[in-house]
């Protein structure tokens, strides 16, 4: 089996086919020979199996081999030809109609037998007797039985387990198939066995009868010829026709012997050779023909004689001349009595016909049985199968119609149907429930799709104008640039970004209200759309990316076209806009940056367009600028910074550095001042003195201030969380913060967000802030102080505020400006001022912090003047938060001071 498994499918199939062919041949050899050359053979079953498994071509090859061998070696008669024709005919039709092998084979045998019978009739119309019919009947039976065997094999034997036929799908047998097989097998199987056994018995009986009759006849003849003269004997020797005639008369005088034919053989020509015997017969009986002698018994005297097999001989069976022979000594001769088997022919075939009748009766009864079973059970099962196939689908599609279940008079079947009905009703309920749920789900899914769509619109479109928003713009630009890069043939006018900022929009908004502002924006977006309408859709893209900022992406247009568009926009937006009866005049500043000439990436191209737009605005508005035209003039630093500040918060470019504050008496680090730094992507670290005033000008100080406050508080919380006991963080504030936002709210909010105690926070304000907007600032400071937050006055001494003015201010400490500190103790004037400030401060309960402490002399002088805390490069410059913690860990106690 191991070796077998290793063989390829081709080899396996060849071995399998070879085995079947061999079995077919064996079937021919080991067939059961009935009298009259009727054969019961299973050979064609194997050939039909080959046909079923391997197809027509291989089957016909096997059939030719088997039948040719049979024809050549065993039987040169009709059967091998019929056998070959069987496979040929059945095979041809089976190719087209692979349905019923048994039916095809049965039809073949019926037609073949009719054809043969017709031929027999044609040859000898009068001789066509019961024998021909019964032999055909047997062929038919054997044919059906064999085809059934083949069908049974291919249906039930899992041959593909040892031989995997590609693409063969074994369909389980149907009930009716099973019934048919069972019925045929149960009728034909026993019939064939009975046929074989009974015909064997029958042959023996005939043989014994013939033997007895022959012996009687021989004895009778001998008795009757006892009176013969010498001349009689001589004439007999000379085979005298007359003498033999007398002999025949003697025989025929006895009625029992009339069926015999008498022959005489010379004593010396006694049947020495079984094959060739001189055979002398009276009258016109066979003379000297070749004999095929069949010995039946041990006695050499009695045997069955058959004419030798000849080549294909339709119509005339050699059994027509077959006879039982008895050889007996007779006056020195052999008298040979032959009893033609024809004598028994009718008897034999009547026997066959009787069997055939019984078979037919059985067939009829089984047919009725199958019919009834089919009617009662199979039809029910088939209907049940039909109805229950795709049952859920039927129940779903025809909710309101009931399924027609078959009924039956048989109890079990009826119960089965009832069960099915119950089951289907349950199923129907389930399906109905499921359907409701499904509908609900479907509706929700629809809603979800809709909201997804809406979300998409919201995400990608500006609600007010309906134009794409910044997100969409970024996406679009990115894709466009990627695509252009991929194209690989970038020319100078591949793409351009046109940034449009409205002039005087703020005034309109402030004076006419937000509603008018919205109407204006809608009107602007319409005008922009109108300008671009004449260009193909794939070459233009317009979006609103900020309050009054619009952007247009132009693809594959030359500079002149771009210029025309810019001019059209400017001129269109110059025209007054009707805002519900009021005319508003606005203008537009347009900046244009081209890809790839002005930048090779998305960020730069937008930034450059922005710069060009600023330049345009800077030159009075209502015009446009190409980045290419301004980049060589040099962009002013302030403009660049201001532009950068806009992005810095978004891009998270701000950082906080911390400068430690040291307690003069303990030497411990008591806190730190948070100092902002701008880590510019191009210019590196920018100090606050370079951008704070710019931020205040642009109003950006508000968000920046808020960010600093929040970040500083968050940092304290982190430190505390990490176990560092830094008591206080100081944050610088701008007057604008107090003027434009509610600082109390902000502080309160930040404190609650971060969860630090208010005393940990110290706000630093300048003298000028109190001077400029005293009431507003002081009011807020009071409330802030009430929260518990400390307030320090930064750069004290630099302004012109009198010390007395400090009284009543919600301040907790003073920070002496570094200009007083850095040259003490040499500058005595400064020493005196510092001393006065400290004394006064202490008098009204304020702490004093010295800033800009850079030398040990400064430290000692200040210590002598009873200053509370120090801050300055002597101790440490402002540090990043990591470094600050390092410092805090190492030098949290300044021992020189102790």
């Amino acid at each position, binding site marked *: 089996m191991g070796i077998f498994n290793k063989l390829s499918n081709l080899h396996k199939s060849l071995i399998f086919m070879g085995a079947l062919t061999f079995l077919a041949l064996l079937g021919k050899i080991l067939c059961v020979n009935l009298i009259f050359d009727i054969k019961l053979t299973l050979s064609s079953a194997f050939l039909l199996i080959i046909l079923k498994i391997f197809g027509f071509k291989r089957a016909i090859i096997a059939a030719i081999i088997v039948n040719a061998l049979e024809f050549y070696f065993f039987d040169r008669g009709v059967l091998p030809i019929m056998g070959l024709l069987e496979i040929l005919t059945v095979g041809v039709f089976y190719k087209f109609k692979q349905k019923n092998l048994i039916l095809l084979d049965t039809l073949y045998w019926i037609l073949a037998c009719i054809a043969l019978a017709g031929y027999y009739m044609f040859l000898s119309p009068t001789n066509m007797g019961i024998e021909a019919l019964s032999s055909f009947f047997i062929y038919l039976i054997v044919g059906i039985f064999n085809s059934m065997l083949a069908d049974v094999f291919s249906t039930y034997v899992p041959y593909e387990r040892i031989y995997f036929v590609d693409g063969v799908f074994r369909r389980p047998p149907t009930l009716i198939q099973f019934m048919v097989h069972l019925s045929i097998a149960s009728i034909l199987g026993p019939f064939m066995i009975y046929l074989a056994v009974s015909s064997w018995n029958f042959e023996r009986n005939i043989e014994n009868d013939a033997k007895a009759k022959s012996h009687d006849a021989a004895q009778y003849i001998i008795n009757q010829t006892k009176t013969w003269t010498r001349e009689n004997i*001589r004439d007999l020797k*000379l*085979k*005298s*026709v007359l003498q033999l*005639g007398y002999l025949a008369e003697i025989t025929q005088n006895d009625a029992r012997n009339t069926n015999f034919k008498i022959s005489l053989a010379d004593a010396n020509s006694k049947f020495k050779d079984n094959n060739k015997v001189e055979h002398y017969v009276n009258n*016109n009986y066979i003379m000297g023909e070749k004999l095929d002698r069949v010995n039946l018994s041990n006695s050499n005297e009695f045997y069955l004689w058959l004419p030798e097999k000849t080549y294909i001989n339709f119509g005339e069976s050699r059994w027509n001349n077959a006879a039982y022979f008895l050889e007996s000594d007779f006056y020195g001769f052999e008298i040979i009595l032959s009893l033609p088997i024809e004598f028994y022919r009718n008897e034999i075939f009547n026997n066959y016909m009787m069997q055939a009748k019984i078979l037919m009766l059985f067939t009829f009864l089984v047919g009725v049985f199958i019919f009834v079973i089919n009617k009662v059970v199979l039809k029910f099962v088939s209907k049940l199968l039909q109805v229950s196939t795709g049952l859920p689908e039927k129940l779903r599609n025809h909710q309101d119609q009931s399924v027609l279940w078959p009924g039956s008079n048989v109890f079990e079947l009826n119960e089965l149907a009832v069960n099915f009905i119950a089951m289907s009703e349950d199923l129907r309920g389930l399906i109905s429930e499921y359907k409701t749920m499904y509908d609900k789900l479907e509706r929700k899914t629809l809603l979800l799709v809709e909201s997804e769509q809406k979300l998409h619109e919201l995400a990608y479109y500006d609600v007010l104008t309906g134009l794409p928003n910044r997100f969409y713009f970024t996406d679009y630009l990115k894709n466009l640039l990627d695509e252009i890069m991929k194209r690989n043939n970038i020319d100078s006018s591949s793409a351009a970004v046109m940034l449009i900022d409205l002039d005087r929009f703020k005034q309109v908004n402030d004076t006419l209200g937000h509603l008018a502002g919205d109407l204006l924006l809608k009107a602007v977006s319409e005008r922009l759309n109108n300008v671009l309408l004449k260009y193909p859709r794939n070459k233009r893209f317009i979006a609103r990316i900020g309050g009054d900022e619009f952007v247009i992406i132009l693809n594959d247009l030359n500079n002149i076209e771009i210029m025309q568009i810019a001019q059209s926009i400017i001129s269109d937006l110059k025209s007054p806009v009707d805002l519900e009866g009021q005319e508003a005049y606005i203008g537009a500043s347009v900046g244009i940056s081209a890809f790839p000439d002005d930048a090779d990436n998305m960020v730069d191209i937008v930034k450059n367009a922005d710069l060009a737009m600023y330049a345009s605005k800077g030159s009075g508005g209502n015009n446009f600028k190409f980045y290419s035209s301004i980049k060589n003039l040099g962009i002013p630093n302030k403009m660049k910074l201001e532009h950068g500040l806009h992005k810095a918060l978004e891009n998270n470019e701000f950082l906080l550095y911390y400068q430690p504050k040291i307690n003069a008496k303990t030497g411990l680090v008591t806190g730190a001042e948070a100092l902002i730094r701008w880590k510019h992507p191009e210019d590196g670290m920018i100090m606050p003195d370079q951008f704070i005033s710019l931020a205040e000008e642009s109003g950006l100080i508000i968000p920046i201030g808020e960010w600093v406050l929040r970040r500083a508080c968050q940092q304290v919380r982190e430190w505390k969380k990490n176990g560092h006991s830094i008591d206080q963080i100081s944050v610088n504030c701008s007057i604008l913060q107090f003027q434009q936002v509610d600082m109390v709210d902000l502080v309160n909010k930040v404190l609650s967000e971060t969860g630090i105690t208010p005393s940990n926070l110290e706000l630093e304000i300048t003298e000028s802030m109190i001077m400029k907007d005293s009431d507003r600032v002081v009011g807020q400071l009071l409330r802030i102080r009430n929260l518990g937050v400390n307030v320090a006055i930064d750069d004290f001494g630099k302004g012109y505020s009198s010390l007395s003015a400090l009284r009543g201010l919600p301040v907790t400490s003073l920070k002496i400006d570094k200009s007083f500190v850095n040259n003490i103790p040499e500058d005595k004037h400064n020493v005196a001022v510092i001393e006065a400030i400290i004394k006064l401060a202490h008098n009204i309960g304020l702490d004093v912090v010295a800033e800009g402490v850079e030398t040990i002399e400064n430290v000692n002088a200040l210590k002598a003047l009873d200053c509370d805390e120090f801050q300055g490069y002597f101790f440490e410059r402002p540090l990043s938060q990591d470094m600050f913690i390092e410092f805090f860990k190492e030098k949290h106690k300044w021992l020189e001071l102790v």
Partner: protein
Amino acid sequence: MKRIIIKYVIAMLAILPLVSCSLTGSYSDDDNNSKSESIGDKKSEATDISKNKQDPNEITIWGYQQGWENYKADFEKAHPGIKLKFVPVDLDLSGNITSKLLDQMAEGAAPDIINIQFNWLMGQYNYIDGLADLYQPPFNAKSIIDKIPKNQSCWTTTTDGKKLLAIPLVPRARVTYFREDIMKKYGFPSDPVELGEYIQKPDNWLKIARELKKHNIWIMQWAVDPLDIYINNTGFYDNKMNFIRNTNRIAEMLYTIRMINAEELASYVGIWEPKGQKTIKDGRMAMVYMGDYGESNLEAWAPETSGKWRATRLPFGAYNPDGWNALAISKSSKHKELAWELVKKIYEDDRKLYTDILNEKSNFLGGQKAQKLYADLRSKIPEYYFTPFEKKMKDLWDTEVLNYSGYTYREKDDFKAVKDIENKFSDVFGNDLSILSKYLGVKNRFKG
């Protein structure tokens, strides 16, 4: 030399009158039986061959004509070590010799070549397996037999025609020899053709008989002569087992016989007896009916009548043979090929002889070109066949005819008599004929 041989052969054939004699007159005679037996006994060395073991290098020919002895020297010279042995055999008038021959055949010791001397004896061999079939190898005689007219070869084949049992030599036709001078003298046609035509009618023939009787001259020996002339030597049944002696002409012959009896028109003296031969010599016999060898017999018996005789056809429209020889080879022969060579030689010479003498004139017959007449008559002999019981049938026939013509059936109608005879034959031979009919595969008219 040639003429000498011819003459010799013709002379040899003269022995055959004995046949005619015995068959026409005294066939069933006891004397004849004893006579034939005595002949057999006399030639015991020849007839009892079975007792002499055959020399394996000897080819035996049973029953021969003296002329054949001439072949011996040439044959033995051509086949050194082989001897030809001619065994003279008496004429087998009774069939006894044939019976002995059959014994030898049954023993497998029959002579190699057998000369069949009487055509009816062929019936004995016809239905047994004793003679070689000359159609078969090594003989292959079909080509030879095809050259011979069917009416000459029919009796040498088996009745069914399937086997050729012997090669026939040229048969003798039966003719009417008449005294031309006597016919002329009494006013009857004397020219052979005219007379031949004249005697076709039985009445004319009777007229001659009546007229000559007045002058003590006879034209027949026995009363039954008309039937003998009409149908002798041609068997009783044809090859389909039909009785051939039941025709109107037979009835007519029966009537004629009755007339002859009534008017005593026959001489009642056989010519094969000296008494009879004297009537020829004396000129009291004006017509004799013999085989064509007859002129030499007449010349021998009455040489002084030479030139007065003429030959013509038989009366009553009859044609039949009178004189037959056929050569058969026995089945048990060990020298079949050599035997066949000899048979063929004899046959060829025989045929040639008759061709050579065809135009010869006969001095005895007054210069008549008799051979031409014989050949013509020979060609008109009908086909005929024989059964194994031909002799018994002949006996029965003669008895019946005698009975009728003489006494018992005097009142009977001739046609009824013919029917009665046929029935008598069926009664006696029906069983045997039935067997033969079955064998031949012909309609069986007999009770089997």
